């Protein structure tokens, strides 16, 4: 009792703190620099104070959600008993608490990071607006995962989308930002349309918008309605999650926002889509049709493989990370697909493994992706460019940022002992277990999925070799890299926190898994004290392949490394080493332009997957006037955005063509508009007779 009381208070505290932060931000942060230096310093302190408020808010909800997760009991919070919508109740059930934990963990780190980040453009940009949006964004995300009413859900969902829109267009003077914002708001409205349709379908059977009533009636709905709800949820939440082919807004929007916000969007916001899917697929609908799981699986595989392939072709650091978000959403969805397939088949043992894998990867992706975005933010912040081809050699100037980026890169490449490996391994486990099932469709789908997941991980590793190597290693490629310095300590502290989390979740995954299993039990409506549950718990946590594997593999790898070092030492004997310039094939010295480029690095993959990329090359050679000058050669290399050119353009063109026909109704005559009214009235009266 005391336990739940405390988490309730902490949750209310965090909501209040977000509201206070959102209100105080625009009041305290001046748009123009005050004349006196004391005033400027004061404004700086004010910004710091507001970000500290949001950090406290996130910390409070982090603790609250952790308490709920540990106590395994749902907690209802009604801070405002009387609202126009009736009772405004937030509920921290295990699923909500888990997603709240993810939101608050990343929110805390990002708030700390923003202390330093936002102060750098204080007085240059509207920091008050950023403070307001940052706090409202966190508040609305918290609400999205905790409200218990369909109408309220749509309201806070839309609020979250609108806050995101303004964050994407924060640098509103740049045309790409505005374009990205428009694309985002258009796509997210399509998604909201489907969500409203979904809630109305649910409502038509339960006659109430309460989540509790959905839980009771939705599983007994006719299959037609169930399938409609399933598809609406898949599309509506899929757009927010960035599932291919609904992803087109994501690689535009995430880079456009300020880097601290990109971390929140990519790390957390797209996860609200995952939250919605789990809530609807399992909590509301219960069991589904057999092919639902396969539909999700196909989307998941497509998203992960294509996402990482597109990422490989990107030279914009933040866009590359954005494409990796699509890939990782695909991996999360794989777990959900496995859970759907096996829950439907009644094999909850495997379903729980799949669901735990999905949840675990959600947490892991949130930590390492926000870590990567924050360190990419540091790079962009100090160099002023996002183009990798203009960077290089940053490890010497930004040693800490480079280290943190490397930790994130290793985690996202699913290498032990970091957390990315732990959850992808668990996903593999789910596939492996599915292989034992006799049913032919499952028996064929599982190995294929496994192979594609392996391919994805390998390509992701290749991509991050490129991202890290080109950005941080070698020598600097342009003047952007001159005169730069490491980020302030609070930015580094935030990255350090996330890096520590990556390491912690990776080294001891059983700790996380044991907390996640009750969540999966809750989602699948299973009695946590049931016999099967205990059995699954044992099979997960007592199974050495799941639990000990990361440590085991890490030990193995370290062993191999040790053997290699010993071998090198032995083979080298005691020859002395000399320090000399790098051999440049006999040429005079090395120029930065001679380095391996990102384009060059990704060439083999571009060739192998040319059917996906459709690369085209234009070479323009200008012969010089006189033989004493070299010819100028311009090479233009393009890869095609296949979804843009083959799906969205034709779709948009046909919609516009249809609208052009409809536009004939708009004649411009007042009389015809009046005539429309007149004719409608007459027809209606006629029909009423």
């Amino acid at each position: 009792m005391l336990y739940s009381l405390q988490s309730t208070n902490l949750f209310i505290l965090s909501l209040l703190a977000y509201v206070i932060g959102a209100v105080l931000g625009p009041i305290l942060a001046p748009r123009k620099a005050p004349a006196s230096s004391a005033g400027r310093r004061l404004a700086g302190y004010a910004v710091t104070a507001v970000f500290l408020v949001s950090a406290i808010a996130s910390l409070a909800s982090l603790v609250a959600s952790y308490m709920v997760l540990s106590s395994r009991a749902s907690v209802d919070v009604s801070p405002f008993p009387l609202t126009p919508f009736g009772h405004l109740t937030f509920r921290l059930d295990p699923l909500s608490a888990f997603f709240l934990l993810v939101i608050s963990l990343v929110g805390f780190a990002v708030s700390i990071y923003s202390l330093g980040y936002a102060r750098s453009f204080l007085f240059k940009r509207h920091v008050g607006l950023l403070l307001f949006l940052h706090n409202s964004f966190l508040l609305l995300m918290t609400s999205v995962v905790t409200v218990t009413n369909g109408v309220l859900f749509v309201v806070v969902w839309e609020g979250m989308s609108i806050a995101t829109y303004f964050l994407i267009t924060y640098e509103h003077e740049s045309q790409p930002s505005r374009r990205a914002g428009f694309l985002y708001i258009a796509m997210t409205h399509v998604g909201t349309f489907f969500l409203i349709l979904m809630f109305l379908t649910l409502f038509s059977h339960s006659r109430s918008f309460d989540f509790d009533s959905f839980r009771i009636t939705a599983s007994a709905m006719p299959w037609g309605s169930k399938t409609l709800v399933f598809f609406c949820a898949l599309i509506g939440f899929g757009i927010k999650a960035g599932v291919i082919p609904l992803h087109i807004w994501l690689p535009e929007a995430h880079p456009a926002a300020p880097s601290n916000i990109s971390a929140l969007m990519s790390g957390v916001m797209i996860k609200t889509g995952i939250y919605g899917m789990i809530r609807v697929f399992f909590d509301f609908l219960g069991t589904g049709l057999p092919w639902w799981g396969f539909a999700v699986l196909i989307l998941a595989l497509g998203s992960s493989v294509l996402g990482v392939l597109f990422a490989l072709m990107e030279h914009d650091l933040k866009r590359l990370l954005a494409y990796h978000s699509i890939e990782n959403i695909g991996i999360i969805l794989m777990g959900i697909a496995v859970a759907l397939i096996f829950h439907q088949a009644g094999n909850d043992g495997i379903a729980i493994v799949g669901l735990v894998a999905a949840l675990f990867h959600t947490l892991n992706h949130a930590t390492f992706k926000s870590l990567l975005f924050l360190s990419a933010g540091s790079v962009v912040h100090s160099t002023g460019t996002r183009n990798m081809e203009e960077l290089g050699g940053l490890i010497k100037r930004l040693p800490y940022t480079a280290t943190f980026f490397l930790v994130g890169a290793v985690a996202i490449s699913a290498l032990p002992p970091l957390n990315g490996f732990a959850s992808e391994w668990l996903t593999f486990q789910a596939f492996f277990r599915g292989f034992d099932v006799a049913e032919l469709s499952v028996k064929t789908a599982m190995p294929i999925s496994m192979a594609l997941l392996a391919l994805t991980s390998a390509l992701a590793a290749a991509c991050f070799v490129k991202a890290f190597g080109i950005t941080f290693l070698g020598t600097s490629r342009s003047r952007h890299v001159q005169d730069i310095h490491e980020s302030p300590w609070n930015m580094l502290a935030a990255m350090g926190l996330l890096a520590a989390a990556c390491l912690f979740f990776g080294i001891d995954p059983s700790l996380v898994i044991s907390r996640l299993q009750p969540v999966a039990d809750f989602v699948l409506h299973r009695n946590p004290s049931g016999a099967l549950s205990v059995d699954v718990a044992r099979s997960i946590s007592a199974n050495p392949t799941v639990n000990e594997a990361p440590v085991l593999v890490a030990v193995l790898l370290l062993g191999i490394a040790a053997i290699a070092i010993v071998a090198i030492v032995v083979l080298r004997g005691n020859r002395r080493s000399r320090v000399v310039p790098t051999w440049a094939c006999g040429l005079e010295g090395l120029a930065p332009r001679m380095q391996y480029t990102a384009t060059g690095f990704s060439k083999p993959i571009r060739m192998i997957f040319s059917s996906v990329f459709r690369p085209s090359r234009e070479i323009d050679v200008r012969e010089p006037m006189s033989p004493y000058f070299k010819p100028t050669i311009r090479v233009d290399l393009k890869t095609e955005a296949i979804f843009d050119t083959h799906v969205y353009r034709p779709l948009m063109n046909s919609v516009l063509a249809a609208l052009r026909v409809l536009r004939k109704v708009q004649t411009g005559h007042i009389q015809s508009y009046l005539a429309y009214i007149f004719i409608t009235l007459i027809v209606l009266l006629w029909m009423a007779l």
Partner: protein
Amino acid sequence: MDQTVPYLIDLLAAAILVTTFLIVSSRSLIFYVRLFSLQSIMLGAVALLVVIGYGETHILVSVVLTLLVKAVGIPIVLSRLIDRIKVPKEIDFSVNTTISLLVCGFLVILANSVAEPIISSRPVSTAMVTKVLPISISVMLIGLFIMTSRRKAVTQIIGLLTMENGVFLSGLSITSGMPMIVELGIFFDILVAALILGVFVFRINRTFETVDSDTLRRLRH
């Protein structure tokens, strides 16, 4: 009750319908405005008869306002407008007179059949409702038709005002006058609408050298 008052109301209502038909068939702008004025006077007379015959004294205010605003005020404003904008005083039709009259005849029939269920559903159908309600609906529909089928902006104002007269008449017929506050609201509305539309027409004329609202088409991009 004396049968004279309902009889007179029926007669005046019929006369109002006739003026509406005259508006449809007329060719001169000034004549339009005068006919509207006449129509409003008759409407005021109907309202006055309702006061006398049914003892609804609060309608007296409406009577005064109808006569002041609709029978005198708005016609004066519109006549001055027509003088000032110096446009050809003839009316441009998009539907010619003959067809217009035929359509209006059809509208009256429609209005009668629409009013039928309303009349029969009333427990005590007074003479006033049975005769006046169909007429008032006809006047509304014809007003809308005038707005639709005439080109000049001034004629559209007249159409709107005619519609409003129809609304007022139906209010009288069904409920013996709407609540005072609604009546006042409507009067204020119609006055402001007429004034604003008048200014609007004047501006259109200044900008486009015509009050033919067809030219507003150019605003479409």
